[in-house]
């Protein structure tokens, strides 16, 4: 088990280790090493050099493992990484008496992370060792990632080919989900949230995935939809009071209106800016999103600014209200659904109703997307994404075509927005920050552009998992950002990226000949 590194490489290894240590030291010494602490009458510094030292030590060990693996010393890495992982996990599981008490960083989560990282190293290097044991197995470093990528590609292709089946199974699972045993209110709430993001992802997929337009301000349309509903439905809305209406408009009446308003906003924004190239479009849409938020924040007489609009009613069912009689004043002459049916009021029933409403809305978005791809306008979107100049020379008006994509995408954003308002019963500009746009875009891109099932997978990964792991608390967004980076580095084209032309002229032969002719 002696470490055998060729003498010529030894200096390089030392430089590598030293360089890593130096970089990690420089990264951590300022922000980790000193903590700016508030004291009465000012601020002072707290020293945390132990954390810096441990960060450097961990970096050196990890880099050392990587170097050892590169030189084929899999056994050392497997044994030492497994030892670290086992020690950490055992002491983490069996109370505070173990190794973990003398680790300098006390956050349990970081210790778990370290344990998982070492376990990963142990497994990875054991797998490589086994692979090398085989006679034909060449131990080239590039081989393993390539195999992985090929595997994921095959999975993606399979998923796309069997989309109909997978879709049907997913639909059935979604339909029975609220009635499964063990599903409590918390899970239902998470499911509603995930479905909202799936719908937003599908809506944005029309703009980004099909038409290839980079939209960083999708949240603007979400906000327009939410406020168009909130302003007409809540008894607290200043607009309702100005109009002198005593009763808000029902969710079902408002829904098309909210979609229309959002689509109009989309067209109004899109009209001047859609002739811009990709990145400029991205920044302008981002700016537009911020403009909407700033306006909502400051237009106090209409939107009540940062106070937001509260008391938004839940959707009605068959003409009956689904609220409990909390607010006697507004509800005195309405009949609630549960009274009409002779049921007890139960919060879970309202959530189940919301669940099916958003499920239906999301499926409608999906159905629209799948069908519109077969229409001339859908084909024009995809053609534009591939080659704008070719489209123009074939007589497609790029601006108008993009405008329709933008408008439809915005419309679904508006629908989702009014659902958001009715679910939260409260809207304020705080819910419509840039980070929301980034999350929705991340769902589309991580899923693999244009892949409808990819959006579902990504929404589960990005929204569902962090919600379930609420215990991560303040680390949640850190992991969110980190996993966005890692997934993109692993699969730059998206998790389920697999692009085949939606239609082919005369089968495969024609494609081959145009390919060689170009």
């Amino acid at each position, binding site marked *: 088990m002696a470490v055998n590194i060729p003498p010529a490489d030894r200096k390089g290894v030392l430089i590598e280790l030293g360089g890593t240590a130096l970089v990690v030291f420089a990264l951590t010494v300022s*922000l980790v090493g000193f903590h700016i602490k508030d004291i009465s009458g000012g601020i*002072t510094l707290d020293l945390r050099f132990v954390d810096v030292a441990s960060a450097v030590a961990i970096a050196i060990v990890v880099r050392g493992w990587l170097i050892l693996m590169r030189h084929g010393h899999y056994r050392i890495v497997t044994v030492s990484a497994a030892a670290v992982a086992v020690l950490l996990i055992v002491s983490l599981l069996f109370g505070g008496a173990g190794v973990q008490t003398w680790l300098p960083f006390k956050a349990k989560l970081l210790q778990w992370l370290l344990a998982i990282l070492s376990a990963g190293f142990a497994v990875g290097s054991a797998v490589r060792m086994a692979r090398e044991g085989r006679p034909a197995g060449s131990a080239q470093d590039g081989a393993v990632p390539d195999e992985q990528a090929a595997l994921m590609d095959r999975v993606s292709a399979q998923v796309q080919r069997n989309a109909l089946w997978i879709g049907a199974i997913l639909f059935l699972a979604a339909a029975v989900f609220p009635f499964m045993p063990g599903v409590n209110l918390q899970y239902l709430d998470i499911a509603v949230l995930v479905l909202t993001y799936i719908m937003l992802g599908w809506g944005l997929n029309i703009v980004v995935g099909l038409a290839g337009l980079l939209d960083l301000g999708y949240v603007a349309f979400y906000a327009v939809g939410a406020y168009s509903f909130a302003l007409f439905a809540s008894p607290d809305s200043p607009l309702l009071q100005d109009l002198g209406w005593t009763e808000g408009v029902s969710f079902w009446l408002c829904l098309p209106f909210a979609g229309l308003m959002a689509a109009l906003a989309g067209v109004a924004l899109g009209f001047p800016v859609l002739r811009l190239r990709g990145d400029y479009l991205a920044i302008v849409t981002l700016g537009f999103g911020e403009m909407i938020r*700033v306006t909502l924040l400051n237009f106090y007489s209409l939107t009540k600014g940062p106070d937001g609009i509260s008391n938004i009613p839940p959707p009605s069912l068959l003409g009956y209200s689904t609220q409990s009689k909390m607010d006697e004043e507004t509800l005195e002459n309405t009949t609630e659904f549960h009274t009409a049916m002779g049921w007890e009021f139960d919060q879970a029933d309202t959530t189940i109703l919301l669940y099916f409403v958003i499920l239906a809305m999301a499926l409608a978005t999906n159905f629209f997307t799948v069908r519109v791809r077969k229409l001339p306008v859908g084909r024009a979107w995809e053609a534009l994404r591939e080659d704008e100049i070719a489209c123009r020379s074939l007589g497609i008006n790029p601006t108008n075509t993009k405008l329709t994509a933008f408008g439809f995408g915005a419309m679904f954003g508006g629908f989702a927005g009014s659902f958001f308002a009715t679910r939260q019963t409260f809207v304020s500009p705080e819910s419509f920050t840039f980070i929301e746009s980034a999350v929705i875009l991340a769902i589309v891109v991580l899923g693999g552009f244009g892949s409808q099932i990819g959006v579902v997978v990504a929404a589960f990964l990005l929204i569902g998992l962090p919600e379930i792991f609420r215990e991560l608390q303040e680390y949640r967004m850190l992991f969110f*950002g980190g996993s966005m980076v890692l997934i993109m580095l692993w699969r*730059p084209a998206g998790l389920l990226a697999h692009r085949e032309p939606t239609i082919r002229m005369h089968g495969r032969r024609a494609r081959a000949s145009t390919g060689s002719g170009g």
Partner: protein
Amino acid sequence: MYHVAYFLDQLINGVTLGAIYGLVAIGYTMVYGIIGMINFAHGEIFMIASFVSLIVFLLLGLAGGVWLPLAILIVLLAAMLFTAVYGWTLERVAYRRLRASPRLAALITAIGMSIFLQNYVQLLQGARNKPLPPQITGGVEVVNTTNQAGQAYAVSLSYLQMLIIVLTIVLMVVFTVLITRTALGRAQRACEQDRSMAALLGINVDRTIALTFVMGASLAAVAGLIFMLRYGATDFFVGFLTGLKAFTAAVLGGIGSLPGAMLGGLLIGLIEVFFAGYFNLEYKDVATFTVLVLVLIFRPTGLLGKPDIEKV
């Protein structure tokens, strides 16, 4: 007379704000020029620089009174150094492997990095606003007059503002020399035009791109220090809006053009301050973006950008 004084006051404020935007915008424009991606996390680099400057200021304060110009020089160098390491790491970890990937992939990674860095700083330093007492005080009175209500209204050019303007001009000169006269600048311009051809001619492309990030981060570090001195407080979220406006400035000036970035920064700073001063404070960001949209509609390549020719 009051109106002139008020105008002058806004002008001075606008120019100093514009210097911050311009310095950050150069980082955006250089990275965009060389690898064609929006480095969304650049605003976070600026935010980190403001924290590093604050920490070094506090350290020097604890170490006992250091002669002020020397203290500022030390803070400047420390901020540039430590922030540059962040810039370098950002490129090495998050962007290098994605250079050949679809553009959106790099953009998503950049947004992910931006979220990551914001929360990293928030976790380490807390979410509360961190104040720094004014370090440079005093100034030269330019105009002294009375306002409409008859109260005294003095416009002064503070030493801090002078320092900011001088520092920015010096940096611009150094930077221009670096780009136009040195081997590194030549390599950068070559990579900008054609990366594979540059590599064939023996330019270390990886190193050149890494140095571009280092340079961009150092300039953002100067902006972070200026921000800290001028506004006296920072938190983990300052990078977002500053970054957004700086990117707007880069687009306004013509992305890829260094003088354009500085000009765009100045214009954005002036527009913001004048709009807030004469019309409406709350809607100043709306005004900035409206100007951006107008420029992009009527002059899509920005003020000093070269029109790019689409080849089929």
